[in-house]
């Protein structure tokens, strides 16, 4: 759920929208008949409700605010769930941070175990599973000699990235998914959406866990 009203700036934008719509209704009613203004107002309200619904569902693209650092440290944001311990991902992190004073933030979206759990906000199990994966991932990243910390993110990966960027001044983002034929994130366009919304270099890593297990 994307809240389209998160700050005074958002409230001001909605105020401007209502002011513009209200002015058009008032002018139309004054120039023609009040009934025409009422019909126009009903149309605008319907359009506005639809727009707000789409915005709340996250269907509308918007630029994501990015916190900037500036202390010379390279900051890597890693977003992964089931693939968070994948060799391919660890290899990519190692490559990105090679010969750099680096800091890694691993965000693991807490994915509800079922749709019923999602609607009931029954997130405890999802958070616990995500936390366990994240901790193992942090240990693995720590073994690479990198400084890393972790967060449990929103179930919507794009919203989890947006949340993380509010407090973490990332220089690059790595998104890890299953192969295309098994990835729900790819099916939902998570990576494409991140590319369109975020003005940062984004690397997509495909982790094939079954192939990695077979090799081991």
């Amino acid at each position, binding site marked *: 759920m994307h809240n389209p009203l998160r*700050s005074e700036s958002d409230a*001001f934008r909605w105020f401007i929208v209502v002011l513009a719509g*209200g002015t058009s209704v*008032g002018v139309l*009613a004054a120039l023609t008949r*009040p009934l025409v203004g009422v019909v126009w107002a009903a149309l605008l309200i319907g359009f506005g409700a639809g727009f707000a619904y789409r915005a709340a569902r996250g269907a509308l693209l918007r630029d994501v605010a990015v916190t900037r650092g500036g202390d010379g440290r390279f900051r890597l944001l890693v977003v992964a769930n089931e693939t968070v311990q994948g060799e391919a991902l660890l290899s990519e992190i190692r490559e990105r941070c090679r010969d750099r004073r680096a800091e890694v933030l691993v965000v693991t979206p*807490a994915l509800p175990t079922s749709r019923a759990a999602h609607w009931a906000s029954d997130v*405890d199990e999802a958070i616990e599973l995500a936390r366990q994966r994240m901790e193992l991932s942090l240990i693995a990243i720590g073994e690479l000699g990198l400084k890393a910390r972790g967060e449990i993110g*929103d179930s919507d990966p794009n919203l989890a990235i947006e949340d993380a960027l509010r407090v973490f001044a990332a220089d690059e983002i790595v998104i890890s998914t299953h192969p295309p034929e098994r990835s729900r994130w790819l099916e939902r366009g998570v990576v494409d959406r991140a590319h369109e919304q975020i003005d940062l270099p984004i690397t997509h890593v495909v982790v094939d866990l079954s192939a990695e297990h077979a090799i081991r």
Partner: protein
Amino acid sequence: MESATVALDHAHEEHHGPPEAHQSSRIDRQTLGILLFIVSEVMLFGAFFAAYFFLRVVVDPPSWPPHPYELPVTVALVNTCILVSSSFTIHYALESIRKGNRAGLKLGLVLTWLLGATFLFIQVNEYVHLGFSARDLGFGSIFYSLTGLHGAHVFVGLVLLSFASIRAFRGHFGPEAKDHLGVEVPGIYWHFVDVMWIVVFLTVYVL
């Protein structure tokens, strides 16, 4: 779905009592509180608007306002411009403090307060000269109820702005988001009050 931050260092510490509250998408509690309050206020205004449209459509269809009453549309339009301006000044105040401009914050808050007070003064003056009271038909009741309800909200907004202004002149607030919540929250409320007035003005005076 809510999100929660888990620091690795604390992951295995023993925890007693209920689990920590999750904070949804990093909206601070004060902002979430005012948003929930505004939702309840929308419902309150909705009840009054339902009564208004019932009277307007079902009870007295031929003319609005009913003969011989008249509404001072021009005065209300001027008052609308004054209140609308105040949304720009409160936004200016917030933008100023976000950039660390304390003088701009103070100026914006004082201007907003003055514009709000002027709106309220003109509205009370309008009541005195209207020539009908809340006891005159359903029309008088709903007119005073709707505009009075909104006026009460402006008054509450002025009280909030007074606190914010006093704190601003005492040197409170800073550029970081967490350091100017005391202006951010009244700012959101003030925009809501202005939006509601636009709706009240259009329905009661124009349409």
